[in-house]
């Protein structure tokens, strides 16, 4: 066994074991190292790395597209390369390879639309030539113009809507962003966004399992993005249960959007909850209390977004109903963080 270390562009280093005669890329993939590759046959040059210490050579008989000068300078193609000693390589990408690296973009405000007694929908369009890729559920930080303070919001829109992005924002008495949105914001004003951030995102590998979404208030935003992403995925759709709640009926929002999702997605069930004065068809209580026996199967995957107390209660309740704790993903979503 040889020990091989990859030094990433972001300063992170990670090591793994390579058997003698084993190709370094094969070992890296097996060890779930972040590595970029494509052809695995020494041609496409995607897996290029620079040998910084140790001895590593192209497997005898394997071809590679490296020029002799490149080999002399230490360049190797990991897919056709064997380690003859412990060695380390520099790679040109970061340890987040394959993930979306956070960066700053500029966006123009399209609309600020009041959608409930204390919530607005903010629609923006990214500036020409700027782009933002994100996973459904991740969040961005938006700088409050003039004040320089940052607030975190998840898009309720999906990746294919970019350059348009939509956010649901709770209006707080005298909140920095709230004041900006309700008093200052107008079409074509420029906002600075940074992101994406967060490990609360839709798990692609679990997309066929039954889904439960529990959302409190504007915690609905990332959930909408997840539901729409699942909708856009071809093939069999999983059963989905959304439990969404606010304090009172006039604080609720996006109910028409949810109706539309139900029209488009036969496997989506929604429970709309209010703590007080429920209207016809609404659940009286919080979104956790709307969960019941039979909602959960052993492979259910759950996404929770809202105040910490709701997340704690929902987690307890889901486990009680039979959910695997490893399948419960959550994001605390307090209005001003």
């Amino acid at each position, binding site marked *: 066994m040889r020990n091989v270390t990859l030094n990433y562009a972001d300063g992170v280093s990670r090591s793994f074991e390579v058997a003698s005669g084993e190709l370094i890329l094969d070992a890296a*993939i097996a060890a*779930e190292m*972040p*590595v*970029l*590759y*494509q*052809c695995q*046959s*020494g*041609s*496409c*040059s*995607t897996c*290029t790395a620079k040998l910084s210490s140790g001895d590593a050579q*192209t497997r005898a*008989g*394997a*071809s*590679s*597209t*490296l*020029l*002799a000068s490149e*080999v002399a300078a230490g360049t190797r193609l990991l897919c056709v390369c064997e380690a003859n000693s412990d060695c380390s390589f520099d790679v*040109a*990408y970061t340890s987040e*390879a*394959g*993930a979306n690296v956070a960066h700053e973009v500029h966006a123009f405000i399209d609309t600020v639309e009041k959608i409930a007694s204390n919530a607005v929908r903010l629609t923006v369009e990214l500036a020409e030539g700027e782009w933002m890729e994100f996973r459904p559920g991740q969040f961005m930080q938006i700088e409050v113009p003039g004040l320089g303070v940052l607030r975190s919001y998840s898009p309720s829109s999906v990746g294919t809507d970019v350059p348009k992005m939509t956010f649901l924002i709770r209006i707080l008495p005298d909140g920095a962003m709230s004041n900006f949105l309700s008093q200052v914001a107008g079409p074509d004003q420029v906002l600075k966004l940074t992101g994406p951030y967060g490990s609360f995102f839709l798990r*692609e590998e679990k997309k066929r399992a039954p889904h439960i979404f529990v959302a409190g208030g504007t915690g609905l935003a990332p959930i909408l993005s997840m539901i729409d992403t699942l909708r856009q995925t071809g093939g069999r759709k999983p059963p989905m249960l959304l439990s969404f709640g606010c304090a009172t009926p006039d604080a609720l929002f996006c109910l028409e959007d949810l109706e539309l999702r139900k029209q488009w997605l036969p496997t989506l069930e929604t429970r709309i909850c209010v703590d007080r004065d429920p209207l016809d068809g609404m659940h009286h209580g919080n979104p956790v209390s709307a969960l019941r026996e039979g909602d959960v199967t052993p492979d259910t995957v759950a996404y929770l977004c809202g105040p910490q107390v709701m997340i704690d209660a929902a987690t307890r309740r889901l486990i009680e109903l039979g959910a695997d704790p490893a399948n419960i993903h959550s994001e605390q979503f307090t209005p001003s963080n």
Partner: protein
Amino acid sequence: ISEERTNSSKVQSQYQPYKDAAWGFINHWYPALFSNELPEDHVEGIQICGIPIVLRRVDGKIYALKDQCVHRGVRLSEKPTCFNKETISCWYHGFTFDLDSGVLSTIVANPEDKLIGTTGITTYPVREVAGMIFVFVREDDFPDTDVPPLSDDLPFRFPENSERFPHPLWPAAPSILDENAVALGMHRTGFGNWRIACENGFDNAHILVHKDNTIVHALDWVLPLGILPTSDDCITTVEDDKGPKGLMQWLFTEKWAPVLENDKLGLKVEGLKGRYYRTSVVLPGVLMVENWPEEHVVQYEWYVPITDDTHEYWEVLVRVCPTEEDRKKYQYRFDRVYKSLCLHGFNDCDLYAREAMQNFYADGTGWDDEQLVATDVSPITWRKLASRWNRGIAKPGRGVA
């Protein structure tokens, strides 16, 4: 491991400049016409790398200028109008350009206009050798003093490279620059991008498409199923300070193994008359096939970009013919054998294959979706070399068809 990590599109590819060169490499020498396509006092219009070019021959000398009037952009070649030997005039409003400098020297109906002498059209250096006219296709501001010799954009020469690239199996390949060289051939438009066409030229893995060609069977040639690289130095890149930049493939040496069998498919090649050849390619995309289609003859090919989805495909056979009789014999053999069986026949299959690849690459997705293998060491090496040594990436054509 997540799916995204297998997607190489997120890293800047080592040959990104090549991927950007849909309209070709600019500031290079390209063939424009055969000499006999431009007789004395004729005017012809062509297009290379998105640039319209008009050629005129006066007293034997050839001039090449941008074929787009500075006034309102019509092509001068669309209705050739020349009032003397020093100029070419636009047929529309009579803007008249100096053949040698491109300067606006008069306007037919406006001889005193202040614009005269202050503007003009780009001129392109011209060389005529062995029956072919070459043009140096350049950006408008590329200085005359930087124009390299034509030989920098032509294949490696022999015997001067015989020591560097020995070839015991055949005589030293002739060159179009040799004394008494005669270039016979043809050109036609290929409906696909020039890079797709070019890569096919020196691709050692596509012999399958030629398996049923008449010339192979008429002459009892033995072609292997393919030729596999066996060593790291199967290709030598040439990046000398002076001279052409390109790559030489060590075909029919121990660095490449001919594949004669595929057990799984029950395929086996048998026979005696091995057909030895060697391919090399130099910038801006010139193929040389030594010892092809027979001894003492060399085949050149160019894939001259016209637009991003068309190229002019040039197939040229060169032989040194010191005497008039040699010349006649060569011409006769070209007309009777080479033209129909090689330039058509054999190479028609290549043109077909190149055009068949066009859809895959035309929308840009092919460059990401292709899955290359060991034998593709040839195109990959070429892409990297071309990315490194080209003299400029042509911009999309402006105001042209």
